[in-house]
């Protein structure tokens, strides 16, 4: 875990999904993985908190889920590949995610992307 612990601090603004995060987020990611099924997405959308409880999420994790707060979802162990299936349920695009995480409007975020061309 040494290498991992060091690497967490290595790149500002970046949450490396290493063993430490994986241990934290297993149930959260397992829940998000279940969203590959349309049926499960429907069940979740009907009763999000009940669905979270069935996957034994912590209170912190449940709040991050119901708030759709991406940075907090990452901090409580979510992996972006699985989280994208959660945010997809609410029609959030990766631009929406980027805007929210960087505190920009969608237009500002798109402008930032284009500015790097």
């Amino acid at each position, binding site marked *: 875990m040494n*290498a*991992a612990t060091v*690497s967490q601090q*290595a*790149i*500002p*603004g*970046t*949450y*490396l*999904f*290493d*063993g430490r995060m*994986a241990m934290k987020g*297993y149930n959260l*990611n*397992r829940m*998000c*993985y279940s*969203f*590959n*099924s*349309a049926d499960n*997405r429907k069940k979740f959308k009907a009763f999000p908190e009940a669905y979270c409880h069935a996957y034994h999420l912590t209170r912190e994790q449940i709040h991050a889920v119901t708030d759709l707060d*991406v*940075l907090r979802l*990452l901090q409580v162990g979510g*992996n*972006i*590949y*699985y*989280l*994208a*299936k959660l945010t*997809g*349920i609410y029609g959030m*695009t*990766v*631009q929406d*995610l*980027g805007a929210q*995480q*960087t505190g920009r409007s969608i237009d500002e*975020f798109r402008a*930032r*992307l*284009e500015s*790097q*061309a």
Partner: protein
Amino acid sequence: MARIIGALTSSHIPSIGNAISNGKQQDAYWKRFFDGYQPVLQWLDAQQPDVAIVLYNDHGLNFFLNNLPTFAVGAAQEYITKDEGWGLPVFPAYHGYPEMSWHLIESLIEQEFDIAMCQEMAMDHAFINPMRLFWPNENPPKIKTIPVAINTVQFPLPRPARCFALGKAIGHAVASWPTDEKVVVIGTGGMSHQLDGERAGFINKKFDEMCMEALLNDPERLARYSALDLVREAGAQGAEIIMWLAARGALLGNVSKIHSSYHIPISNTAAGVLAMANQ
């Protein structure tokens, strides 16, 4: 013996699939991106390869953290596609080539690559979108496919040098397959982008240009980076360039450029395509 005639490396951004499904290839946003594939399509049309070995990364469709392989090789008769969670369309299954898959698996184990063997495997956008880009007129295309998945979900990722060595081992395996089939190796992912964290939206054009150049002329240079280096230089998901490096590794002959194209941004990503011939 079978021959690897070249490597095609391409971004696999989910929105590409939507653009294709909705016929937006000539829209202002997409035109430059799709036009960048034309010379590759002409090359494929002239070459008519029989087999595609596709190095891609699963995004949490086929694999979960309960059994996450570093390298996984498909050995199925066909490869289905499935809902990834975003309502992407489900397509007819891609054709497999299990006989050659097993040859590849036997050769890789003999060369001491500790692969997982997958006799059933669902493909996500990382496999589907490059297939749709390179074979736009048929779905599924006639070409036989062998998917090879590389872990980019969970750190530790495989070392870039190990991915490059995997590609070389695939090159050796194909060379010992007894038919004279033509094989193309496809590497999908990248180029620089980052979806998560306060650094979301990070793109690094300079690094991407270096990658394109190094893949052609000095792949060992890219193989010397660590996975963490790639995250720093190319963004968290830019580390997907390891699939390009693995595909390049499979070219054991003289390598020349067929075509490349690069465009910022598609969605959150620097989109690139690089086609290399192997003589």
